[in-house]
């Protein structure tokens, strides 16, 4: 079985995310990292590989992103991927989710994976939708927000929470699955794995190499235009208590509640 894991480079959690007013796109200048939600997808792939129910021949990390995204791939490899692919091309910049999903699916098609895994969301765009888009382009069944996955050679048994409670769904392979963050506790990479990551094969390709139709990607190929950014209606900030002396803190909370007749 071959598993492809989609991973993305995002601004580090400590960086305050903002839109660059010049470009109307996310300011990606600060510290960057592998999207934390994607580490759950890599871990899920590793657990299938180590679980023994099926034979996993290869785990391939795939990203679409600028030069710097190579580092996210190194991290993915240090967490267990065997090799990685980076789709990088200025023509892809500004792609909406549908264009991004189309481009990623075109790369995946060549790999003929049995299973494509993704994170539940990216920490920057938070669109939650790449999985379902990639699946439609690949003409594969798919499910998002999966928190339990049992695999055999031809199918998956997945559990996830939907509108009315927990659903259990059986899906034939090949399939596209986005995993929820409750599915596992991702491991930390070993020092050896971090050191070795740069030596694992990394293939870089432009959109032409991948066979992507240039008219369907980038800002011009995207069917939704996001812009006119504005501040949300301001809400008066709440009162803040820093807990230093807990007896006093609790006294203040009770007084606050009492004033509002909540006790």
């Amino acid at each position, binding site marked *: 079985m071959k598993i492809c894991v989609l991973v993305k480079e995002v601004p580090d959690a400590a960086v305050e995310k*903002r839109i660059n007013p010049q470009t109307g796109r996310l300011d990606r200048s600060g510290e960057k990292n592998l999207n934390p939600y994607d580490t759950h997808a890599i871990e899920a792939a590793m657990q299938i590989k180590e679980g023994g129910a099926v034979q996993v021949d290869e785990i391939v990390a795939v990203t679409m992103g600028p030069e710097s995204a190579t580092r996210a791939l190194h991290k993915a490899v240090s967490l267990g991927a065997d090799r990685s692919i980076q789709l990088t091309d200025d023509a892809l910049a500004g792609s*909406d*989710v*549908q264009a991004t*999903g189309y481009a990623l699916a075109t790369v995946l098609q060549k790999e003929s994976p049995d299973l494509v895994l993704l994170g539940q969301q990216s920490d920057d765009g*938070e669109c939650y*939708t790449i*999985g*379902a*888009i990639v*699946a*439609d382009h690949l*003409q*594969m*069944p*798919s499910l*998002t*927000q999966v928190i339990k996955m049992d695999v055999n050679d031809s199918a998956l048994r997945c559990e996830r*929470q*939907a*509108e*009315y*409670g*927990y*659903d259990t*769904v*059986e*899906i*034939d392979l090949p*399939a596209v699955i986005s995993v*929820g963050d*409750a599915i596992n506790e991702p491991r930390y990479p070993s020092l050896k794995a971090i050191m070795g990551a740069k030596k694992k094969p990394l293939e870089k390709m432009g959109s032409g190499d991948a066979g992507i139709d240039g008219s369907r990607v980038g800002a011009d190929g*995207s*069917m*939704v*235009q*996001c*812009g*006119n*950014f*504005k501040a*949300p209606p301001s*809400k008066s900030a*709440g*009162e*803040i*208590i*820093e*807990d230093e002396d*807990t*007896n006093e803190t609790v*006294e203040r*909370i*009770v007084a*606050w*509640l*009492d004033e*509002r007749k*909540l*006790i």
Partner: protein
Amino acid sequence: MPGILTFALHYEGAFNKNSLGAVTEASKLARELGTEAHAVVVGENVPDELASQLGAYGASKVFRVQAPEGLAQPVVDAMAKVMTDNGHDYALFGGGLLGFEIGAGLAARLNAGVTMEVTAVDVEDGRLVAQRPILGDSAISESRYRGKGIIIGRLNAFEMQQSADAGSSATVEDVQVELSPWSTKARMVTRGEQRGADVDIEGADILIAGGRGLGKAEGFETLEQLAASFGGNSAVAATRAVVDAGWYPYAAQIGQTGKTVAPKLYLAAGISGAIQHKVGMQASENIVAINKDSNAPIFEFSDLGVVGDLNKIVPKLIDAVKAKKGG
């Protein structure tokens, strides 16, 4: 004729509130655009009485499709066919989970633009413009569509409302849809399983909610004591993270795939305040948060924020509330 198509999710004989909200919103927007709002209902033998109810919320026509329930891809097939055959320009979904999956699949199938987490839709020069809060609700972006537009609402963004001619029922038209081969490769084994006890939190005036910051399932015992110290109409609620972990029953979950509540007091302990949680509780009258991280998003929408360790604060708070009540 061009128009707006919505997906109406139903379960156990009733429509989803957020779907009814989407139908209401679509009918309002359709009137402004001078067109009509329609809905798609998918399922095994959906009765006329159910499907036609959507008329009361403003849908003039309901397309009924015989296909498996609860899975997104059959609905993508259905909506893609209906939109292509009838020329709808837009698809609109209420908040939840399936709408995200269906809307995304539809965007891929129709090469359409898609916006998710939408909180408001306006009409501008005869086109729809969707507003989406981004980057942890720190800004709002506007979406415009070059071709067809797919708009996926945030939970509770669109309020359901019966239209002025509320007696009207929609015409129901059966549509034969041939499912894509890949849409038949997922099978529902069990749906809507309720994990954990059947607790009732919707009527509570005081809700004490706990999240991953409790550290372990036993943390909820302390929160139950805190709820009890308030006496009367109080209960304990939870985030998806801890429900998925098996620490507390699903019936007590607040948020996008849980319940929506608006108690007099919502006291959140060890909850970060993710958007999917916020959408289920932001209408609470008073929000108090205890979190050790002063940058936690929940402080952006709390009335009283306490920065500190809940393990130190909550036990003392129980005693203090008891003392206050006794005194």
